[in-house]
C-alpha cells in the first residue's frame, strides 16, 4: 500500500472508528494483570436489619486507624460527629430513609473485585493486596484525585486541609480493612449486634444468601448487594425489604466492572501501539514526499 494523503486520512478515521466501535463491542477478555477473585479473599457483610446505629464501629475505626476527630459542637457539647466519609473518617453510620421506612447504613470502602479506582490510578497508588483488599500506597500517589471521580461509591477522600509535603503530607483516605493490624477490621470486632461481620468473601456470600433464603420477604429484592454489582464487591449488603439499595446510597450498577468501557476503548485504540505508529509513519512520509516535490519543483524552475 502506498502511503498517500488519503491513506493518512483513512488511518485517522480508522483510529477514531476503532475507539467508537470499542465502546459498543464486547471486549473478548479481561486484560492481563487484572485482579480476579481469589478463594482467600476477605470482606465484610453488613446486614442493615440488625444495625441499631450505635456507632461503636465508627469510633473503633478511628482508634485503630489513628484518625483525628471531626468535631462539631452543638448545645454546649462537642462531639466527634462526621457527617460523611472524609479525610478523617474511613467508616460511617448514616440514617437511610426510603419513604417512611428508615434503617441504618454503614459506609466504607467496598473493596470491589475489579476496582475502578485501581483502573484509573496512574502509578498504582491504589492496588490489590493479599485478601483482595483495595489498598493505598501514598508513595506513588500524586494527588490527582481521579480515584474520587472514578469510584462509583464516592469512597476515597482527600485531606483537603493539608498542603505541605513531608510536614503535612496530604493523602487519600479510605478503609483498607485494617490490613495494618493482625486483628482485622475494628468495626466488625466491636459491633454489639454482629450487624457487620468479617470473614472470607465466599463464606460471607453464602451466609447472606442463607439469611435471604431463611427469611423470604425480609430483605429488599431478596438479594445481596455486591454479589454481582459493578462486577462484584468484597463488602456485601442486606437491606430491609422496604428500603432500596439506592436509598442506602448504593448506586444501581451494571454487572460488569465500571472501568470495563474505558479499558476496552483504551486497549482497542492503542493495541500494540499499532495505530499511533501507523499514523506517525504515514504523516512523516506525506511530509517527506511533499518536501521532495517542493525541492524538485524549485530545481526545475532554475
Amino acid at each position, binding site marked *: 500500500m502506498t502511503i498517500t494523503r488519503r491513506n493518512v486520512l483513512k488511518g485517522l478515521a480508522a483510529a477514531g472508528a476503532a475507539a467508537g466501535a470499542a*465502546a459498543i463491542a464486547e471486549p473478548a477478555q479481561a486484560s492481563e494483570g487484572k485482579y480476579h477473585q481469589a478463594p482467600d479473599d476477605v470482606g465484610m457483610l453488613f446486614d442493615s436489619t440488625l444495625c441499631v446505629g450505635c456507632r461503636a464501629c465508627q469510633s473503633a475505626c478511628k482508634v485503630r486507624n489513628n484518625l483525628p476527630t471531626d468535631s462539631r459542637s452543638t448545645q454546649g457539647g462537642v462531639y466527634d460527629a462526621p457527617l460523611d466519609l472524609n479525610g478523617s473518617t474511613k467508616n460511617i453510620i448514616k440514617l437511610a430513609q426510603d419513604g417512611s421506612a428508615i434503617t441504618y447504613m454503614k459506609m466504607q470502602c467496598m473493596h470491589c473485585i475489579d476496582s475502578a479506582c485501581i*483502573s484509573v490510578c496512574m502509578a498504582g497508588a491504589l492496588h490489590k493486596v493479599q485478601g483482595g483488599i483495595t489498598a493505598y500506597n501514598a508513595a506513588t500517589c500524586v494527588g490527582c484525585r481521579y480515584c474520587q471521580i472514578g469510584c462509583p461509591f464516592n469512597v476515597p477522600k482527600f485531606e*483537603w486541609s493539608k498542603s505541605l509535603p513531608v510536614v503535612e503530607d496530604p493523602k487519600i483516605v479510605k478503609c483498607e480493612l485494617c490490613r495494618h493490624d493482625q486483628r482485622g477490621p475494628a468495626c466488625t470486632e466491636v459491633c454489639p449486634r454482629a450487624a457487620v461481620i468479617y470473614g472470607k468473601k465466599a463464606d460471607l456470600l453464602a451466609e447472606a444468601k442463607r439469611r435471604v433464603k431463611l427469611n423470604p420477604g425480609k430483605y429488599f429484592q431478596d438479594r445481596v448487594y455486591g454479589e454481582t454489582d459493578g462486577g462484584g464487591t468484597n463488602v456485601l449488603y442486606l437491606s430491609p425489604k422496604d428500603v432500596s439499595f439506592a436509598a442506602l446510597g448504593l448506586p444501581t450498577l451494571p454487572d460488569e466492572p465500571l472501568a470495563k468501557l474505558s479499558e476496552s476503548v483504551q486497549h482497542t485504540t492503542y493495541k500494540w501501539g499499532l495505530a499511533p505508529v501507523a499514523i506517525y509513519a504515514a504523516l512523516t512520509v506525506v511530509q517527506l514526499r511533499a518536501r521532495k516535490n517542493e525541492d524538485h519543483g524549485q530545481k526545475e524552475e532554475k
Partner: protein
Amino acid sequence: MAAHAHERPLGGQILTSGFKFLLALSAVWVALVLVRLVWGLNGPFGNDPLLSVSAQSDGYAWGIWKPLNVVTFTGIAAGAFAVGLVTYGFNKGEYHPLIRSCVMAGAMGYTLGGTSIMIDLGRYWNLWVIFVPQWLNWTSVLLEIALCVLAYTLVLWVEVAPSILEKLETSANPSTAAKAKKILPALRKAMPFIISLAILLPSMHQSSLGGLFMVAHTKTHPYWHTGWLPALFLISCLTMGFGAVVVIENLTTMAWKKKLDQPLLARLSIIPAWLTVAYLVIRIADVFWRFRDPMVQARHAAMGKPLFYGGFFLLELLVFAAAAAMLFSKGVRENRGKLLGAGLLLVFAGALYRFDTYLVAYQPSPGWSYFPTPLEILFSITLGAIGVTVYVLFVKLFPILSGVEATNAPDPVGGKSAASH
C-alpha cells in the same frame, strides 16, 4: 523553507501600559499559587464559598481548573493541531502563514494547562513517579494524558524554536549568530519528524480528555456519558482549534499593524463547518441509540432535574449548530466581522461541551454541589493573562506573525529597535 520568509517580528515598544497590566495580572496568579502551596487547595479559610482558593471537595474533586485551564485552554491551543493537520497532513501549503502564530498560541496554551494540572495535584512532589515504567498503570486514561501532554508541550516549543533561531541568526554577537546558523538547517531537516508527533500526540490526548469520564457511568449524566466521548472530544477540539485561529488572527490584526488574509481564513473555515456536522450527527445519534437501554433511562430518571440537564444539552447543540450554519454561508466566511463571530461561537461551543461534561453533567451523589469561588475564577483569568503576556512578548521579538506591515518592522527579522510610532 521559502514560505517561512513571510513572518516578521512586530517590533515596537514592549513595556506598553497594556503589557504592564498583563504583568500585574500575572503577579496576582503567582500570589494565588503561593497561597495554594502553603494552605492547600481550599486555602487558609477551608471550603468557604467566598474566600476559598478553590471550592473543590470530596464530591467535586475536580473544579473549573480542569475544564477551563486544561481542557479549554488546550482546546484553543489546538489551533496548532488543526492547522498543522491541514497544512502538513493534507499538504495544503497555502495555510503556512497561519502556522507559527498557532504554534506559539499552542505552546502557551499547553504550558499553562500543564502548569495548572501540576499546581492542582495534591501531592505534586510525587509527580516523578509517572516516569518510572514498572509502576505505571496503562489502563489509566489520565496517565496517557499526563505523559502525552508533557511530550506534546515539549514538541510545541521545539516547533517555536525556528522563530527564535531566525532572530538569533541576526544577533550582534557573532558566536550566537554562528550557532543559530548551524542549528537551524538541522532543525529544519528534522521538522517533518517533529511535526508528525505534533499531529499524532494531540489526537491521542485530546480524545482521552473526554475519555476520562467514561469510567464515571453513574456520576455523569447520560446525555454526556458515552463510549463516544473520546471521538467527540477529538472532533470538538479541532472545531475549537479552527475557531481559535480565526479569533487570534483577528485579535492580532486589531491590536497591531498587520494584514489579515480573509480569503485564506474563509477557505479554511469550511473545514470546521463539516466537522461540526459530523460532531452533531454522532452526538445526537449516540444519545438516541443509548436511550433505548432501560438502564440509561433509569439513570436519567434518577439524576432528575430534567430542565437543567436538558437545557444545557440543548444549548450545547444549538451553539454548535449555529456555528455550523454560519460557517456554511459564503457571505459569513468572507466577511471579517461575521467570520470572527462564527469563530468565537466555535470556541464557545467547544468550551461549553467541556464544562458540561466535567461539571454540569457530573453529580457524584445527592448532597454534593460545586460552584467556583471568586479566587478560583481569578486564578484561571490570571493564568490566561500569563499566556497573553508571553504571546505578546514573543510576537514582538520574533518572526511569528504573517502580514506584519513593513512600517512596524522595516527589517525582515526586525528587533527591539524597530521603528514604532
